């Protein structure tokens, strides 16, 4: 079975790196097929962009772009009014959003499981900042682990170490674990 993930955020937030760390960690978890890709083309700091991760038990043959994902991860809630996130998500899919609000407060229509976590708040609390902005890409991996159950936290810990220096991997993993604990999942049945 293949799980397709689209990451939404803005240039400079580490969207592409998050997609890569997920692929790396899923491979450590034991998935034979993993790929990650940025939006093909030029990228600009601050502009909305996406990246993608595919996770599968079998090696993956396709390198085409994901049309409708099983899971959408939103690093920056401000892109939600600009980008059609739900148009690129399968019915019954999971959307994981960095927000201080609850799923009900976000008033999301459609048959989706909504997971929320205040990744920006966690990063600020833990002083995980780059150039004055909270690092939100790695905490969202913790929310991903909680919301999907596909990749265990210890695999993310190992995956982080492969993508960044050891000291940064430790501080980032602390945020991953905190986000895991604080992610609130609202299944589609419980939303009206």
């Amino acid at each position, binding site marked *: 079975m293949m799980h397709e993930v689209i990451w939404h955020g803005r240039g400079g937030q580490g969207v592409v790196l998050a997609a890569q760390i997920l692929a790396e960690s899923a491979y450590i978890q034991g998935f034979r097929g993993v790929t990650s890709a940025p939006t093909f083309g030029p990228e600009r700091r601050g502009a909305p962009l996406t990246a993608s991760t595919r996770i599968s038990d079998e090696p993956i043959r*396709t390198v085409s772009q994901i049309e409708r994902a099983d899971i959408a991860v939103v690093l920056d809630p401000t892109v939600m009014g600009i980008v059609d996130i739900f148009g690129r998500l399968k019915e019954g899919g999971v959307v994981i959003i960095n927000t201080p609000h609850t799923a009900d407060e976000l008033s999301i229509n459609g048959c989706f499981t909504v997971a929320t976590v205040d990744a920006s708040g966690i990063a600020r609390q833990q002083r995980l900042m780059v150039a004055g902005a909270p690092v939100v890409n790695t905490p969202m991996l913790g929310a991903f682990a909680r919301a999907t159950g596909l990749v265990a936290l210890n695999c993310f810990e190992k995956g982080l170490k492969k993508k960044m220096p050891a000291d940064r991997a430790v501080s980032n993993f602390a945020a991953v674990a905190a986000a895991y604990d604080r992610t609130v999942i609202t299944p589609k049945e419980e939303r009206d």
Partner: protein
Amino acid sequence: MAAYPITPQASLSEILSRYVEGGELKAEYVRVEGEHSAMTVCISASTVGARVFTATSSNGLLYMHEQLHWAAGSRLPIVMCCVNRGVGAPWSIFNDQQDSVSQRDTGWIQIYCRDNQEIIDTIIQAYRIAEQVYIPVMVCYDGFVLSHTMMPVHIPDHEQVRRFLPPYKPHTILSPEDPRTINSVLFPWRRENPQGVLCDGYMEMRYKLQAAFETARTVIADTNRAFAESFGRDHGGLIWTYMTDDAELVMTGMGSIAAEAVAATDMLRAEGIKAGVVGIRVFRPFPKDDVVRAFSRAHAILAFEKAISYGYEGALCSDLKAALYGTGVNAPIHNYVAGLGGRDVKPRELAEAGRNAVALLEGQTMKNETRWLNCYTG
């Protein structure tokens, strides 16, 4: 190593230059002001006995064009990556294969890769091939869709690579101790050299290059076999096949589009359509005997191409038809131009083209026309 950065090749040349700077790769990185010079540096360095590498894309490859002929005519075992990208005008940084396909007749071996493991393995094979037949090798892979997609890759062990690919020992090295004139003007006739030996003329040297291409077919297949034995990974020699044994509908293409056809085959098989794929791994020398065997049982053939020979059809389709002419393989061949300038090619689109080809088998006459996949004008 000499390269000029161009998207989507740039990450490759940047990382290699970092390896050189950090001492991980024992090489000299020559910075140049353009791709014509990059190839000229490779030609010069190869002439004095170095193993050389360069990489480019798109208009960068075309800027090299004159030197591509020169490298092949000089019979230098240069290896180059072409990270396939559409050609301007209009500008596109995105993927298609017009760049390398349009360089088909420059005298280079061309190998197209379908995933990232095949790229690294093929580069190792490419040196062994080039250094046996003295023909430069272009290792082509799709820009962005392969170059910027991360996937698990086994990095071959250094010692194992050295056993498979011993250090390069050129048959001739130009040096101050042994001055020679290389590639001087030749006349339409053969001539004696100063020692009184009758030497090849221009035409004989061209014949020998073509003859080396004929030999290269065996060398490429043998190299793949030896690689598979050493490393346990078989990417196919001149072609690779997927479920072709009983396939009635056979899809073909070069590079990642052939991998998408594999995914499309799985979809069609699930519907009961006997589909299969012939991946054209080596475009030059053209695998003429391999394709006759591979397509011998096909009822319909679909050739998907990320390039067009303006005024006719896809170059692969033309070559395929030429190879099958007179062999008794008379299956209709549907030509599709697809994915130009990075337009995404999806397995479901190839599967749909396959279903149409199956429908056409029922009592319809074959029209010799090229269709453009997912292209709407007006």
